[in-house]
């Protein structure tokens, strides 16, 4: 679909960015010392830190990806919400307080607390950098993917813009400004989503949606007798040859020479499809016409509506939170699937076809391509799902950019309280994602080609101002998470690598300067990654980052806390093996074959795509074996980091 850019969205975003930058410059004087720069001097209030957790954690992938997945496939997107939130239980009950007790600026500090081992410092710093980079790519690509439809700039402008603003935020006041960006973004996002959810419930569900201006949305035809389509005056049926042979489509050329594609639901009944053809010369056709908004051109129709509501009504009217879910469960919604057909001339036609789906199907696990195997019979088919749910559960408490937030509060009680605030805010948000996704599914504004646009387009179905605000908040979302990631990476370079591993003699001022230079470098790398990986699907990259973080960091963190026999060699080996094995597994998986290398996924070398179920236990095993084979550490009580 071609989206109209919104000047209001640009202005609202510039307003938010302006506030954030003004705060950063104002607070810049408080971040001159290392403690001020890396950990905001430990002086952040627990409530602010709790909301900042939400701002740090609820990334563009959480917000846009989950809403999009629910809008397109139903309940399966909500599985991510459940897993992402559950991970906070590990953070609260296992990791938060010891981490605060043992560390000072970075996650490596805590791991290395009683060993003073250069191996641990190096391994933990590298794992921080790897996880942060994996997490940065989807955020930056997401920024670029949003900027084009929302604000009307090309992809690279979004990536460079976000990269520069974030680098400026981080270098002016480090963790102080990062915290406030995340606080503002976290509050805005949760409040805005709550408002939209109320609007969704107030509107209810209808089989005949209208857009914000009251115009009826195009409802694609269904159950049309084949004879009526093929027998129309001047119509002729094109032969089912080439790539179209054996496909369930009928191509009908009308009197004007325009070709429409219909899908055969049965031998006698056809349903309307939408087609997008990219010809060999790069030009695009939509439903047979040049793609565009002018006369003689066509654009894909927005989609998303219920086809049957309980009791056969056309409109439900306002619904309560439970009545809304019950209504969706008992309704039938038109979802859209797609199929790519490579034409003889080199062009590729994507056919988007209707798939009427009952609520009993899309409101349960296994409705999306990602998780459909969960409904299969074979045990191995279910491992991918189980492994991802395990990675989400274990990954949160292993993400460096989340862990460093624990050093910004003054003590363990504040760490605990801020986690509880974080869990409440994030949990509330994830409950809302189900309403936002299902609301978008029936909003009549979805873009069949781009699920990431579902949440902004849902807002557009209400009014333009809401669309402008949600677009601007989506960008602010990217700012909050990216600044946390760049902070984590710059801390790993300046504190763990330069000061602790290489033993460079840096005074406080030099250390902050080194961290700022590192932040600029990481910012530039992030911009390059965002432009280089522009075409990559952003959703699974976040899942991969969780897999790597959980495999590399969690075994070391947990065993350090609960097994006295753990040695420094055991920790170093567990981090290295966990990181390398999960990374290698991912690069050899069917998903990487398909989406990264463009190869046949059947040739993948590992049996399923999500490694956590294998590589997390492997990390624990390696730690135990290596620890038992190496001499026991002199039992020193934990002391302050060095």
């Amino acid at each position: 679909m071609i989206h109209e850019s919104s000047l209001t969205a640009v202005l609202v975003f510039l307003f938010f960015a302006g506030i954030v930058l003004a705060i950063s410059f104002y607070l810049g004087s408080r971040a001159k010392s290392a403690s001020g720069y890396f950990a905001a001097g430990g002086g952040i209030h627990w409530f602010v830190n709790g909301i900042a957790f939400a701002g740090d954690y609820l990334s563009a992938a959480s917000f846009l990806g989950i809403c999009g997945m629910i809008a397109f496939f139903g309940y399966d997107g909500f599985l991510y919400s459940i897993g992402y939130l559950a991970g906070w239980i590990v953070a609260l009950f296992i990791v938060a307080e010891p981490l605060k007790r043992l560390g000072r600026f970075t996650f490596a500090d805590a791991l290395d607390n009683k060993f003073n081992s250069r191996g641990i410092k190096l391994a933990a710093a590298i794992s921080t950098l790897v996880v942060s980079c994996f997490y940065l790519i989807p955020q930056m690509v997401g920024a670029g993917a949003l900027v084009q439809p929302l604000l009307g700039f090309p992809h690279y402008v979004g990536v460079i813009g976000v990269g520069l603003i974030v680098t400026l935020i981080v270098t002016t006041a480090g963790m102080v400004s990062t915290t406030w960006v995340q606080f503002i973004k976290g509050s805005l996002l949760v409040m805005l989503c709550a408002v939209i959810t109320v609007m969704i419930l107030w509107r209810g569900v209808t089989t005949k949606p209208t857009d914000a201006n009251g115009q009826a949305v195009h409802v694609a035809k269904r159950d049309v007798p084949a004879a009526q389509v093929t027998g129309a005056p001047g119509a002729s049926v094109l032969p089912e040859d080439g790539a179209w042979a054996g496909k369930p489509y009928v191509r009908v050329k009308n009197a004007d020479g325009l070709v429409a594609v219909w899908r055969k639901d049965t031998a006698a009944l056809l349903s309307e499809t939408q087609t997008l053809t990219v010809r060999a010369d790069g030009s695009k056709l939509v439903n047979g016409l040049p793609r565009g908004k002018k006369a003689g051109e066509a654009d894909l129709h927005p989609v998303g509506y219920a086809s049957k509501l309980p009791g056969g009504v056309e409109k439900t009217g306002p619904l309560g939170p439970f009545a809304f879910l019950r209504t969706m469960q008992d309704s039938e919604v038109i979802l859209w699937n797609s199929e790519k057909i490579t034409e003889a001339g080199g062009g590729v036609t994507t056919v988007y076809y209707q798939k009427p789906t009952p609520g009993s199907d899309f409101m349960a696990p296994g409705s999306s391509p990602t998780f459909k195997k969960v409904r299969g019979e074979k045990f191995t088919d279910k491992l991918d799902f189980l492994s991802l749910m395990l990675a989400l559960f274990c990954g949160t408490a292993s993400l460096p950019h989340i862990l460093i937030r624990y050093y910004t509060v003054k003590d363990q009680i504040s760490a605990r309280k801020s986690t509880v605030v974080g869990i409440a805010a994030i949990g509330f948000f994830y409950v809302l994602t189900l309403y936002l996704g299902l609301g978008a599914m029936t909003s009549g504004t979805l873009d069949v080609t781009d699920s990431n646009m579902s949440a902004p387009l849902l807002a557009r179905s209400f009014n333009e101002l809401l669309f402008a605000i949600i677009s601007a908040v989506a960008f602010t979302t990217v700012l909050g998470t990216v600044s946390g990631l760049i902070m984590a990476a710059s801390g790993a370079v300046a504190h763990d690598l330069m000061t602790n591993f290489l033993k460079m003699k840096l005074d406080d001022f030099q250390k902050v300067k080194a961290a700022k230079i590192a932040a600029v470098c990481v910012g530039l790398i992030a911009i390059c990654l965002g432009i280089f990986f522009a075409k990559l699907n952003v959703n699974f990259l976040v899942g991969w980052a969780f897999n790597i973080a959980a495999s590399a960091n969690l075994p070391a963190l947990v065993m350090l806390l609960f097994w006295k026999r753990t040695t420094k060699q055991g920790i170093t080996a567990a981090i290295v093996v966990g990181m390398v094995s999960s990374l290698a597994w991912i690069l050899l998986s069917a998903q990487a074959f398909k989406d990264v290398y463009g190869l046949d996924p059947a040739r993948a070398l590992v049996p399923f795509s999500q490694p956590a179920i294998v590589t997390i236990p492997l990390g624990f095993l390696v730690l135990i074996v290596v620890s038992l084979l190496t001499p026991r550490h002199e039992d020193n009580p934990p002391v302050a980091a060095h």
Partner: protein
Amino acid sequence: MAGLEFKSPDVREQEDAAVVAHNTRIGLVLFAVYVAFYGGFMALSAFRPAAMSRPFLGGANLAVVYGFALIAAAIVLALLYMRICRKSK
């Protein structure tokens, strides 16, 4: 490095080992409760997907009810933990 901190000295909290041990134990018990609850969700989704799609409570199916319950349980357990830990101080 502590000597170089001219702006904000690295003040460590003084903690009572018994309190830390008590809090850790409570944390582990609550963690085990949640793991069992989350594990049940994973197992049902993976091995009894049909049961998840049946109406369960007030017309909403088990998948939705269980999902919401997992989110609510996280918040409830977190509040409970905060309350019990505070008593031990």
